[in-house]
């Protein structure tokens, strides 16, 4: 057997399963490998991954650009915070309520806004964030205005006689990891279903999809609501992790961050969003120790993206995946 044949055989070996296993081990062992600060950065990345997953369904799979994601994130954060502070409800109740209320708020926005053409729709979603922030600032009797909600308790679980509180950074990390994994699985199931194919059809050619009988408007509305639910649940995690919520949760910076995760990671791909969350949130969070370098590094990331990875990092991830799978 020649050297080339051997090389060929080595290359053909499928390394995907070992890689996934290794990544899983790293993910599970992360709090013990890195410092507490690394764990904290990963938690922030996992929190932002939720609204980004939702936004990806909208932008990446259905082809609708929205800037409202920060508003739904904020609605979720305030809902969970208020429930926890005033009623001391368990975390899963707060998270579910946050998701449901964010989804419910998406309905009255989506019904008129989704009838508009692309740019007008984007402007509507932008307006929604601004209105959200104004309400958070001025509805003082409920939101405490600029003072924000503070002393939000750490996530608390109560099931019958069992009850425990996720108090430490490490345990919060595992909770966020589990929720992030569930969200990723949910997105995967949605895009693999016939509904996912119809979403892609709308993105690719809405007129054609409509003429083939796909109820495009109803699809867009449902995806818009689902994306808001993801953001709302993400917001509840955010409130319980930081224990503080202020009107700053409703900021355009968050919407753009979520958009950068999706577009930079690779719109219309799941791995892209996971990777994008780690890179654009995890990394920038980790770089907070050098505030001067942080924004420079962030800017460099975006420049690299714009010049060399126009479709985000997903194509690179896919090529690597094929490579280690031995298919190419």
């Amino acid at each position, binding site marked *: 057997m020649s050297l080339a044949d051997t090389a060929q055989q080595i290359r053909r070996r499928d390394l995907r399963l070992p890689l996934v296993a290794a990544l899983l081990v790293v993910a599970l062992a992360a709090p013990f490998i890195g410092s507490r600060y690394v764990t904290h950065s990963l938690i922030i990345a996992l929190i932002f991954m939720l609204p980004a997953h939702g936004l990806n369904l909208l932008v990446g799979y259905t082809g609708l650009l929205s800037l409202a994601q920060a508003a739904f994130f904020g609605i979720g954060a305030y809902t969970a915070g208020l429930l926890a502070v005033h009623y001391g409800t368990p975390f899963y109740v707060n998270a579910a309520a946050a998701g449901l209320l964010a989804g419910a708020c998406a309905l009255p926005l989506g019904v008129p806004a989704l009838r508009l053409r692309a740019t007008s729709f984007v402007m509507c979603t932008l307006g929604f964030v601004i209105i959200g922030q104004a309400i958070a600032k001025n509805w003082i009797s409920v939101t405490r205005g600029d003072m924000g909600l503070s002393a939000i308790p750490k996530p608390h679980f109560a099931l019958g006689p069992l009850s425990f509180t996720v108090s430490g950074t490490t345990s919060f990390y595992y909770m966020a990891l589990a929720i992030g994994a569930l969200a990723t699985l949910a997105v995967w199931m949605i895009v693999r279903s016939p509904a996912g*194919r119809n979403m*892609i059809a709308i993105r690719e050619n809405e007129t054609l999809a409509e003429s083939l009988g796909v109820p495009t408007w109803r699809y867009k509305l449902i995806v818009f609501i689902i994306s808001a639910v993801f953001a709302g649940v993400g917001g509840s995690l955010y409130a319980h992790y930081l224990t503080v919520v202020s009107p700053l949760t409703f900021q355009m910076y968050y919407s753009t961050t979520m958009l950068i995760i999706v577009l930079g990671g690779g719109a219309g791909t799941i791995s892209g969003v996971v990777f994008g969350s780690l890179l654009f949130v995890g990394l920038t969070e980790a770089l907070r120790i050098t505030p001067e370098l942080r924004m420079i590094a962030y800017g460099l990331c975006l420049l690299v993206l714009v010049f060399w990875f126009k479709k985000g990092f997903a194509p690179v991830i896919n090529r690597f995946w094929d490579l280690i799978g031995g298919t190419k």
Partner: protein
Amino acid sequence: MANSDLSIKDLRAGYGTLDILNGVDLDVPAGQFVALMGPNGAGKSTLLKTLYGMTTIKGGIIEWQGRNIAGYKSRAILGEGISFVPQGRCNFPVMTVDENLQMAAYTIRDSRVKADRDYVYDLFPILKTRRSTLAGNMSGGEQQLLEVAMAVLQRPKVLLVDEPSVGLSPAAIHIVFDELLRLHAAGQTILLVEQNTKKAMEVAERAVILRLGKVIWDGLPKDITHDELGELFLTGKMRGENEAVH
């Protein structure tokens, strides 16, 4: 009149306030292959779009299966058995041929979808060999065939095809028209809009010429020469005739 005949009477339509069709009269018996021709702006494509419910109808009747379907929405017209293959690329490029056909079968009940895809693959063997290829990676001719197949999958009684030759190589045009001929031989009623008059006259059994939103000539392709056709396009009249309407 037989049930599957299409009868258009004094049809007036356009886009918003712009009138394009100024009283079109046309009967299409079941099973006929009609080529609609005419100069730019004559209203050929507009007539197809109007039949498929995509324009503003100002007046007239589209009689189909005993009902006036003028003003129906596209989806309802699809349900009535009329399919439309629009001009230009009109598929889902990032989906495979098979997935495109699945999308085209959206309104068909699930149990029948598979059988219908096999039926289409039998009609278009080229597509069968390409079933796992992304539509966007195929040649223009193959994509045009896919688009025709997507319309045929609905088992339409009438197939409206808008300029299938646009942007295709001569060889690809040949393949597309061959497939249209085969569909027609199997009994398909086809209403074709085509700029390539030579090709259209070869395949169609009836030629209808529109000018300024009206039918100005209607007859057998063999009854008109290319020179006469050119004259009609330019002036709306034939040599030695005052008015060319038959």
